[in-house]
């Protein structure tokens, strides 16, 4: 495939997908750096991998089921203790449904 053009607009697009707010000057700097890294990564294209299966993980065992019994867990209080804002016994977030 053709190498993608990594410019300010592309970086802003990807940053939005990643929930990062970047200034234009940050986006410009990352565009240059990412373009170099992506062009380095393009060397993978030199290899024919049509018949090679992907490796997503190297886990040796299948994950076993644990016994279905209730075990102690964090208290409600402990779970909320590190939250920047708490309201009515829950994590407080800005309104996201009008």
């Amino acid at each position, binding site marked *: *495939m053709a190498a*993608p053009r*990594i410019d300010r607009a*592309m*970086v802003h697009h*990807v*940053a939005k*997908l*990643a*929930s*990062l*707010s*970047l200034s234009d000057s*940050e986006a410009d700097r*990352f565009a240059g*750096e*990412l373009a*170099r*890294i*992506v062009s*380095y*990564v393009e*060397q*993978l*294209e030199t*290899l024919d*991998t049509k018949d*090679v*299966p*992907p*490796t*997503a*993980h*190297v*886990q*040796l*065992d299948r*994950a*076993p089921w*644990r016994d279905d019994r209730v075990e102690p867990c*964090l208290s409600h209080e*402990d*779970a909320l*203790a*590190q*939250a*920047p*804002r708490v309201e009515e016994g829950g*994590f407080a*977030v*800005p*309104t*996201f449904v009008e």
Partner: protein
Amino acid sequence: MSEGVIAIADRVRSGEQSAEQVARDALARIEARDGELHAFLHVARDAALAQGRAVDARRARGEALGPLAGVPIAIKDAICTRGLPSTAGSRILEGYVPPYDATVIERLRAADAVVVGKTNMDEFAMGSSNENSAYGPAKNPWDVSRTPGGSSGGSAAAVAARLTPCSLGSDTGGSIRQPASLTGTVGLKPTYGRVSRYGLIAFASSLDQIGPFATDVRGAARVLSVVAGRDPHDSTSLAAPVEPFEEACGRSVRGLRIGVPEEYFAEGLDPEVAGSVRAAIRELEAEGCVVTPVTLPHTRLAVATYYVIATAEASSNLARFDGVRYGLRVGGERDLRAMYGATRDAGFGAEVKRRILLGTFVLSAGYYEAYYGKAQRVRTLVRRDFEAAFRDVDVVCSPTAPTPAFRLGEKVDDPLAMYLSDIYTLPASLAGLPAMSVPCAPTRAGLPVGLQIVARPLEESTMLAVAAAWEARSPARDRAP
């Protein structure tokens, strides 16, 4: 007095020295040296003394003490410790105090080890020099103008300077082995799944593995035997029995087959490092090992493969830092998405943003198969390289890092040059294999050099036998800065 893990545990168990006194001595060394080294982000003075006294009380009651009785240990700040700050070297977790212990911490405490503090690291373990720590880098005790390596640089520096006899780090692409090499310590990355990742702040989940640093091979083996083993809290942890790793350190290596990959002695390798590592391999041959060349032809593609896979996984793992449940929160009284963006922009450093952007890009529509899919297939080829080599040999020996410790600031403006310093450690990570670094002869300037030993899955014992056999002959043995 600075001694290894085994000697300290023996003294505390026999009652020759109290665990509280051992902790006091370690804290005094940290107090004296850490202003310069910055190995620690947090020193747990009160908790360490209390833990030491608790160990002494158990002994006074006649209870049998654990294998790490009174042994001071430093913990990489990516590992959650109940009641002690755990920031992973990031501003976004500044002040975060986890409400639970990682499984490895529970096991250390149950073995009567004493946690003395949390160590400096590259932010979210992303880096090879410690310069990506949001709190400023740790320094190399051999030359404080140089890096101790990364990302577990603080854990390596603490052990190299003999502030503690051992520490825990985590290794995703070399983050235990490379700093061990650069600081002249023993550093061990177990087989993927050997040690529980529960409570390790995740970077790349298919690669991350916790492991020990120590001043000697037996010390590392003892810490590994304490932290290893199946954990119901980590579905990727393995049920394989925890072998007597320490006993393996005394095993004969006569007849053991060592493979030397030609690809690891190619362009970019410092000639002094090459000479030191080849000399170590010759010594192992004199010990009765059989040395043969092997080929790992996809080595040259490991850096590209790793940076696609690790950043893809990181972009997903780091989505949890959103200003809602823990850590920093910036702005956003009215707009949720603006709050996410502002929090993450203020909380993450440049390298973390760079990797989140790269990882998001390689997973994005239109590019997923070309980059992420491709890298996963090349990862299979890297694994097959090792599978083929291990049909003919028992371990693979090579340099751990292409150069000795470089100067702080030397590579900071060139991300790609920094990534290439992990070229020899990345392949074993991609293949999930156990691998460790053991000090060999230093350079003429006195900088440490590491020999990397890689073994088959779950064959830490074989790897440790080779490491101990070399250590017994190594000119770097007991050499401290």
